[in-house]
């Protein structure tokens, strides 16, 4: 365990050192964050007019969903995208060989090899939006409420990670899979809005097949202090199952990996 922590520290120290060369990035990231947030707010404001609302959610509580989405998006930019998009490259160039021959878990290496500060502004502004909107919506923080909210956020992160890693794993067979991750990303934009705003059929699809509901709506409900026990339990179950599936899938895929021939 200690070895993994030390390795993680070295990983991220080298990653940050590598990226400090490009200061311009900071500006671009900030601009992207501001643009994305403004756009999200703009679109959601279009849904709210006199007598109109989104799936029965008040304007403020819908903003909590946007906030959760923004945090997740930031986590993607910081951790998921930089790491998981390199899996296909490693397969293509055969450098996965080096990783497989290290006495360290290959999934750990591939998932946490690098970190990018790009998502930090988004995570920050997302958290800010959550706090502001939640207080506006009249949520009162209790210890158990905060704990549930944190737990739901964590499990939504785990679900997102597992889905993405599972897709990235298919690059062992198909080599070029970043298109598949684009599909995932497009589908996940459904998470910008509360799940109850969708027609019933789609709502079920987004809960069971593509667990978008657990990504943003359930954590937002937890933050607003109105999540049902059933939904919270389902979210934790979903997180455990997807994580185990993605781990098993990776091991299975490695058996097929025959490494790009010299």
């Amino acid at each position, binding site marked *: 365990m200690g070895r993994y922590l030390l390795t993680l520290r070295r990983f991220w120290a080298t990653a940050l050192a590598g990226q400090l060369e490009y200061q311009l990035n900071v500006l671009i990231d900030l601009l992207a964050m501001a643009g994305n947030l403004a756009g999200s707010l703009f679109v959601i404001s279009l849904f709210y007019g006199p007598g109109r609302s989104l799936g029965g959610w008040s304007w403020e509580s819908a903003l909590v969903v946007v906030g959760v989405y923004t945090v997740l998006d930031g986590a993607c930019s910081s951790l998921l995208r930089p790491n998981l998009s390199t899996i296909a490259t490693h397969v293509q160039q055969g450098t996965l060989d080096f990783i497989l021959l290290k*006495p360290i878990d290959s999934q750990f290496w591939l998932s946490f090899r690098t970190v990018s500060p790009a998502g930090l502004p988004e995570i920050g502004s997302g958290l800010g939006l959550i706090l502001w909107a939640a207080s506006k919506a009249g949520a009162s923080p209790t210890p158990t409420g905060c704990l549930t909210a944190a737990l739901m956020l964590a499990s939504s992160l785990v679900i997102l990670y597992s889905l993405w890693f599972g897709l990235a794993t298919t690059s062992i067979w198909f080599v070029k899979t970043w298109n598949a991750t684009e599909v995932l990303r497009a589908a996940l934009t459904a998470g910008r809005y509360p799940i109850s705003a969708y027609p019933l059929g789609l709502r079920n699809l987004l809960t069971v097949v593509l667990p978008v509901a657990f990504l943003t709506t359930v954590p937002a409900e937890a933050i607003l202090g109105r999540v049902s026990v059933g939904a919270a339990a389902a979210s934790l179950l979903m997180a455990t199952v997807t994580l185990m599936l993605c781990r098993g899938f990776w091991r299975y895929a490695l058996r097929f990996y025959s490494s790009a021939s010299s």
Partner: protein
Amino acid sequence: MPIVCAERLSKTYRVAQKQPGLGGTLRHFFWRRSRLVEAVRDLSFSIEPGEMVGFLGANGAGKTTTLKMLSGLVYPSGGNLLVAGHSPQRRQASFLRSITLVMGQKQQLIWDLPPLDSFRVNAAVYGLDDTEAKRRINELAEMLELGEELTRPVRKLSLGERMKAELLAALLHRPSLLFLDEPTLGLDVNAQARVRTFLADYNRRHGATVLLTSHYMADITALCPRVLLIHQGGLFYDGSLEALTQRLSPCRLVRLELKTPLPASAFSSYGQVEAIDGREVKLLIARDQLTGAVARLLGDLEVLDLEVADPPIEDVIGQLFQKGVVQ
């Protein structure tokens, strides 16, 4: 107790086939045909600790596949394999700690950062503490004649410097079994020689076993007393390099320096004329007729100097691969 023990090792790949052109593409669109390719078949050999063994073979003979099976990257489709007391394909941590793989055309160093940063990552991965890591880096850097290069970003290093840094990164955990796939590829002659000296040095110092493939025969002749010749996926020869030369080339090369030049026809009764350059003549003479022919040459002609050697190993092996002969 051998460190590598392979019994009837084999590997079959499934490869998709496609005809060129638009028609082929469209046909491929609807039904994919594939065929099985036997990359390695029935390969048996064993290697003792501390040996330096060269894998020889033409492109696609199965060298790299074999090396990857030995290191645990490729699952064998058949046969038994025991490397350093482990089944390599299970890739247990204790096995991985005792081996390393270096590939001449692939790199593990972080491109934008100095090699030292990559070393620190590797040290953490292999669980080395800082002082020990530093000691080993210094020791290896000295052996490899690396100095300030270690603080320059990898992208600014020359190919030779980068290869030396790769070797350092690969050997930091002091593996006892080294798999080297074309470690000198693309290097200039000097850099090649330095890598060779280093490998021999490392082998002596730590008693490490080295398995090596290379296109440069000089690597093999300098490092490997024993070679395995792989041809079309099977083991064609296992033994010393000299014996291989003898077996492959039934002739020896006799170089003569004459007092006066003579036409080629004058030598036809002694052996096959390889080259004539003024007073210098090169003859290929069958091994069993060598002594008699040399005696006659010395008696019949005015010879100033005479030298007997094996034909260059590159030529012998090259001929073998070109003709594709397997007897």
